[in-house]
């Protein structure tokens, strides 16, 4: 097998050194009764060419194998990925390297992640960003644990019901074992989190709100900050569409204490939902509470600039049971991808492309309303919006997928049972006028 270099000669020579008669002898230190009773039942090995055929067939069972038009978001977004991104990220020095525990031979990864951390703080208007987490949901759960950990009085957090439903589920998973609680804040008729309900809550360790929220609406983060300050509680925001902050006022500018986000929009393919990129940023004050890896700048013995993993005393390999979290790895290669993407899109590119996302979504929304789809929310939105669909839409939608490879919005009822016939539509810079017009024509 081409990954196993040992020849018969090699094996014989090496067994002579180890003092074993055969390879099986190497396992004599394992008591017989602990050895497997039957061999593994795995198919015989496939050649590279058989593997290609098998995987091509498997991939063809996903409709994504065709060029489909994606008008759904919900936390996973269709964006253009420039050719230089896969080119650069596939450099084996990035891909096959491990965590930079030997910094002298890992300066590529370390400087790259330092640049990532910096650009994320610029995007979000925050002081510190970590070297990344698994996804927004888990980063947000970690933020919730920071808030509860810091609070002397409260084991309870207030969580907007317009945070991505799956993220709220993850938070629940993380807070349940130690009996922490979460209170969900309902939505208003405008499709925004009801701050009046939040005002009435006492004894909360943190306030969590997503903006743009799951419906695509832009929340009034200023009000949330005021409430959080009045209640002396942490103000935590999240987002699923990182490009929104190429256009919108940053969460940092509203005084967010912690921001959790999804970075998949930054040059990472959808890949059936993973791996994505969890972003976590905070104010300087909370630096030592942040979980996960941090890259810091320093100097070597010759006075040359260099980078290292730092503040490891927060982490599991030092503090073990007293660590702020159990996190070991980050999503390193995806963080590097995001760094390359942010450098590529740059200050002017991100503004223009974020603006185009907005332009396209406005166009699509207007066009669908014109043919009888009902506007539900009047609030400002970013690249996603909710509409009530006319009768018969569901069948048309299913036919559209099979016939024309178009995904026209996403049914919200499974997530919000009251919202029958409500669909969440998404249009990014990849949605051409031609495609949007075709969609409108087909569902009219």
């Amino acid at each position: 097998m081409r990954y196993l270099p040992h020849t018969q000669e090699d094996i014989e020579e090496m067994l002579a050194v180890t003092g074993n008669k055969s390879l099986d002898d190497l396992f004599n230190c394992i008591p017989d009764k602990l050895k497997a009773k039957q061999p593994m039942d795995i198919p015989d090995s496939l050649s590279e060419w058989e593997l290609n055929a098998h995987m091509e067939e498997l991939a063809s069972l996903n409709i994504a194998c065709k060029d489909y038009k994606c008008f759904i978001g919900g936390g996973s977004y269709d964006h253009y990925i420039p050719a230089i991104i896969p080119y650069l990220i596939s450099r084996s020095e990035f891909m096959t390297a491990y965590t930079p525990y030997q910094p002298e031979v890992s300066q590529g990864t370390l400087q790259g992640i330092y640049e990532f951390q910096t650009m994320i703080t610029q995007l979000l208007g925050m002081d510190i960003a970590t070297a990344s987490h698994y996804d927004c949901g888990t980063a947000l759960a970690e933020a919730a644990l920071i808030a509860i950990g810091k609070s002397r009085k409260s084991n309870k957090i207030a969580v907007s019901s317009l945070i991505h439903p799956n993220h709220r589920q993850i938070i629940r998973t993380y807070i349940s074992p130690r009996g922490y609680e979460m209170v969900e804040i309902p939505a208003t008729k405008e499709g925004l989190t009801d701050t009046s309900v939040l005002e009435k809550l006492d004894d909360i360790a943190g306030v969590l709100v997503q903006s743009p929220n799951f419906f695509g609406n832009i929340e009034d983060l200023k009000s949330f900050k005021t409430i959080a300050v009045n209640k002396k509680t942490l103000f935590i925001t999240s987002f699923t569409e990182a490009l929104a902050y190429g256009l919108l006022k940053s969460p940092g500018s509203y005084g967010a204490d912690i921001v959790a986000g999804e970075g998949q929009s930054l040059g990472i393919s959808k890949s059936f939902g993973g791996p994505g990129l969890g972003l976590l940023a905070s104010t300087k004050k909370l630096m030592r509470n942040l979980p996960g890896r941090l890259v810091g700048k320093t100097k070597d013995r010759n006075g040359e600039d260099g980078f290292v993993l730092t503040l490891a005393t927060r982490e599991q390999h030092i503090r073990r049971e007293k660590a702020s979290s159990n996190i070991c790895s980050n999503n390193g290669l995806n963080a590097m991808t995001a760094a390359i993407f942010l450098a590529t899109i740059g200050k002017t590119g991100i503004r223009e492309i974020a603006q185009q996302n907005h332009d396209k979504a406005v166009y699509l929304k207007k066009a669908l309303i014109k043919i009888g789809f009902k506007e539900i929310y009047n609030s400002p939105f970013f690249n996603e919006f909710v509409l009530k669909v006319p009768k018969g839409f569901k069948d048309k939608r299913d036919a559209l997928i099979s016939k024309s490879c178009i995904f026209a919005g996403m049914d919200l009822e499974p997530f919000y049972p009251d919202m029958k016939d409500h669909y969440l539509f998404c249009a990014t810079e990849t949605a051409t006028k031609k495609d949007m017009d075709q969609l409108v024509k087909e569902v009219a």
Partner: protein
Amino acid sequence: MMTQDSNADPSSTDKPILSTPGLSKSGFRKPGTKGLKFNEPLIWNKSRKGRCAISIPRLDVQRSELDKDLIGEPPDLPELSELDVVRHFVRLSQWNFGIDSGMYPLGSCTMKYNPKTNEVQAARQGFSGAHPFSGDKFSQGALKLIYTLEQYLANITGFHAVTLQPAAGAHGELAGMLMIHKYHEKKGKQRSKIIIPDTAHGTNPASASLCGYESIKVNSGPKGILEPKAIAEIMDEDTAGIMITNPNTLGLFESNIQKIADIVHQKGGLVYGDGANMNAIMGVVKPGQIGIDVLHLNLHKTFSTPHGGGGPGAGPVAVVKALEPFLPIPRVIKKLDNYEFISDCPDTIGRLQTFYGHFGILVRAYSYILSMGQKGLEDVSKLAVLNANYIKEKLKGHLNLPYDQPCMHECVFNDKLQRPYNITTMDMAKRLLDYGFHPPTVYFPLVVDGAFMVEPTETESKETLDEFIDAVKAIIEEVKTNPDILHKAPVLTKVTRLDEVAAARKPCLRG
């Protein structure tokens, strides 16, 4: 700006570092050599107003202005040309050492070769372009892959069911702890403690803490493995279970595991297996058959997915039948020839990831398993263990070997023989860089003072192992003949030893 190596120590008796490229004094081939590298400024220092490296799409609809109150200043990202970006990151990559560069014997990390065909498979449009909310009907390829990979991993490890959701080993540990916690909750009596061996990876006690469990440490015996007596002494009905790594972090097989599992089970506890070292025992031992109730695997270790400079990986969890109801949702089920997600699992610990796990990583692991096949995976473990024992036999006596007995896929030395010369494991590790090898894991496990943990993996050839062995021996010679170069090392790398104390004291985490 170009830099070249000017740091070679002229007083080195091992002149060949500069003069005879690739050949050491004793005539063996030494991979590490000098080479021209390039400096690269921080990326924002290359920024020039007006440059843009991305192709702006043509706008074919009307511009639409958002409420001015909501719009912020554009983030202050750099402005670069496409070549600026490419050159920047190519140069950065050249400062890195990856598996493709040279041997990377990090103990407990299983730095085996990352097959390139796996990248081809993950990049197939049907996989990489799939939207997670496409619907089961239009995602049968993905669902079938997830289901089948679960079956393979369950079979390899000897368990009843598997979840592929956890995003990393530590995430899998959390999943395991949450399931144990829920199990006891369902039994009507929650417990407060978890037993954790002194050789455990730091994520073990950290994961236990996340569930509110107190970690009770138990020391390994004189042979480097756990003794049933020590467990029996502390196991009680307030202990939720034990976390065991097998083979353990000393590279030794925990041969008392069944007895230990019995002790724990007898008092109603569960056994969590840290499967990071699965590379040693595929086809030899099935953890699910030796008393372990829940086990996590690291796909980026045993199953060849790339480490990516720190991630993304994946940490699937395998469970016995009794724990199946607690698995995270969603799960994949098969109905005739059709695959579906289900979330209606009343006893689930809940959701762990926004979607279905690190799907792109799962594709790579699946491809690896199919490429190796049954015999291939059996050979992997045999050859991994052969390689580690070979190194152990060749280096023992030169480096101190605290546990002189057959090892599994990794072996642990320490610097006891070099300390009298004021040379530490750290010095020797740094000098290995100059010789063209990534150092082994150092200072872990904590039970060995000055640990030097070598895991060659099965993908390294005998010649490479011999080069590594010769390099270590040459360095040990330098301990006596040229200790100064060991204190200075590394000298051929882009930067020399970095001031980690200053980095922590005055953190500078952004530019």
